[in-house]
């Protein structure tokens, strides 16, 4: 790789790919590679975070990301507390900052936050001394997802630089797409967004990705094909007509996958809509690395927590 790894993360938080340096990304990926091995041990635990407390503050429904963080935390021997919007004081009208200040009174070292509002983790990071890890803020960023995606790509191709990565689907509502394009651009990959213009955000070219209004031309020679979940609840049938038509023109089918490079891999951040954005023959096919993404997700999240431990204890700028 042409990018050298940093010695440590520069911030107490991992809030977005936008604020990470390429060398830091490299460091996280390298660290995850070492930690991947923990999952293969009979006793899947290391003592790195013994005595540390992690709060998982999930203000939006999540299963796989929350479980993945929790598994990562437990494998590092941290103590974990789980908050979810429905069962916490948030449902009683408490503001995010008040929730966080109350939590801080219990002195957690990390807060992993998933929030429907863009910028919530940023705000939290500025008011509490704990390390904040963004587990998805609205349609803005999902940094650990982009890191695990990059990790999975690197696992298959040994590099990120020069890879042709297609990201297809509802780009406009996708924090996964945004974090991925930020990361892949920094690491020298070539990103292609494929979607009807009604699902593309305005000015998307400025993010550095080439855009395609049909899937087929984007797939030509692609190394990685990442299909995004169609979030039906967000569409109201104004952005595209129907799931049937979406499948017909924009789903990854075995025939369309033929257009990609012969050794291309297929990714999906989950949960999948089978028969909408991805055909089951592809999702379960030999080119699919969707379950590897899930396995790698734990290692990436362990790496983030582990590396932030080095920066722990520093005061937040304006707390």
């Amino acid at each position, binding site marked *: 790789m042409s990018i050298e790894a940093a010695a440590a993360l520069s911030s107490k938080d991992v809030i977005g790919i936008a604020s990470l340096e390429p060398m830091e990304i490299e460091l996280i990926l390298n660290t995850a590679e070492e930690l991947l091995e923990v999952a293969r041990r009979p006793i899947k635990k290391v003592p790195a975070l013994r005595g540390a407390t992690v709060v998982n503050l999930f203000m939006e429904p999540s299963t796989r990301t929350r479980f993945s963080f929790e598994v990562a935390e437990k494998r590092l021997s941290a103590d974990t507390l789980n908050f979810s919007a429905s069962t916490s004081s948030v449902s009683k009208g408490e503001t995010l900052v008040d929730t966080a200040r109350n939590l801080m009174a219990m002195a957690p070292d990390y807060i992993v936050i998933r929030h429907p509002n863009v910028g919530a983790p940023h705000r939290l990071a500025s008011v509490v001394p704990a390390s904040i890890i963004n587990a998805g803020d609205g349609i803005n960023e999902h940094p650990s997802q982009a890191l695990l995606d990059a990790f999975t790509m690197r696992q298959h191709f040994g590099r990120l630089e020069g890879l042709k990565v297609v990201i297809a689907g509802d780009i406009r509502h996708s924090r996964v797409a945004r974090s991925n394009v930020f990361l892949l651009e920094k690491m020298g990959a070539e990103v292609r967004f494929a979607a*009807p*213009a*009604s699902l*593309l955000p*305005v000015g998307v070219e400025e993010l550095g990705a080439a855009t395609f*209004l*049909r899937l087929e031309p984007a797939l030509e020679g692609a190394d990685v094909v990442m299909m995004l979940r169609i979030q039906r609840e967000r569409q*109201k*049938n*104004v*952005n*595209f*007509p*129907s799931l*049937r*038509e979406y499948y*017909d*023109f924009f789903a990854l089918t075995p025939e369309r996958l033929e257009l990609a490079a012969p050794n291309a891999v297929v990714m999906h951040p989950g949960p999948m809509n089978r028969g909408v954005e991805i055909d089951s023959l592809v999702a379960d096919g030999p080119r699919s690395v969707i379950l590897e993404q899930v396995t790698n997700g734990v290692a990436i999240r362990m790496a983030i927590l582990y590396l932030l431990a080095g920066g722990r204890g520093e005061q937040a700028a304006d707390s």
Partner: protein
Amino acid sequence: MSRLLIRNGRVVDPSQDIDQGMDILLEDGRVAGLGERLEGPGDVEIVDAAGLVVAPGFIDLHTHLREPGFEYKETIETGCRAAVAGGFTAVCCMANTDPVNDDPSVTRFIRERASEVGLARVYPIGAISKGCLGEELAEVGEMVRAGAVAISDDCRPVVNSLLMRRALEYARSFEVPVAAHAEDIDLSDGGLMHEGAVSTRIGLKALSPVAEEVMVARDLLLAERTGGHLHLCHLSTAASLDAVRTAKARGVLVTCEVASHHFSLTDEDVAAANYDPNWKTNPPLRAAGDVAAVRQALADGTVDAIVSNHAPHHTDEKEIDFSEAPFGIVGLETAVSLALDRLLHGKVLGFDRLVRLFSTAPARAFKLPGGTLRVGAPADVTVLDPRRRHTVDPTRFKSKSRNTPFAGLKLRGGPVMTIVDGQVVWRAD
């Protein structure tokens, strides 16, 4: 194997900058030769076009064929008979049928019926929204795959600006224009004729021109933002055409059309018609200043196409009070003659521009085959006699409907022969 040699005509083909005496050989549905004094093979059928103008087939971007659902007004068969009798080799038919053409099965039905009829080419226009209700996008991709060439909720504007924006964006994936019936329904306020001195004088409820202009402005802004192809239907006011002119100059992807009655009649004609609903159309017949602006826009290239906006209605629907009758005028059998009489002989434009407006530019606007007589192009030809004098006689219309304000009008110039796919499908008596 069918061969047709059209001799001694004046060939006007703007796609090749041709305007000169030439012969054309049509063979197996294609233009096989174009040149001076062509010799056909032995079994060729010869048409003598001396004194006539030979043009690439005329294409009507805006027709209502009414089938399925309103066969008492028009059918695909009678509509196609009317089209070829009016000099059109192809028509694009609007989606406001019953069921609405918002589904590929309807698109396919129209194409299949048209191919059984075998006269004019018929290009279906799919709906923008399901049921033309302006709420959810129709299956644009499926319809395009089934043969739709554009999408439009014509007769109803897309009120929801977000839906219009998404339609312009979504249609880009399928490279079809979004054809807009530009009208702000609230501003129209149930109006029946053009709002102005005449409407006040004769007492008919007025329909403001700004109802059209506001929507034209909105749609141009949306097209500019989205990069989608906007096609504006039946523009009729000076301000609408000015807006298109400046938008085109800014590089907005926009095309537009004008209906033949909008350069032929004014609101004074409505007054003179003594409340006859055959003069009732939407957009309404405009003031003289708007008609002059329409003619100017036809001459200067602002307008891409002259259309018939053929809107057939049954006699029973039109022989009632002006206020109760539906909007609409039949136009397939008068549009070309009106253009020759009012625009060519009226010295508004020359043959090159006229053929451009009926053939080359509409073909380009909707990406249709034709619009050219290049060798290899479809053998669709319209033959015109610029000197032919005739009187509009609705009783001889091939259309099922007779709702025209032009009955009894004497016109100079008209189509005399229509050739589709190398076959003569209509010849003037």
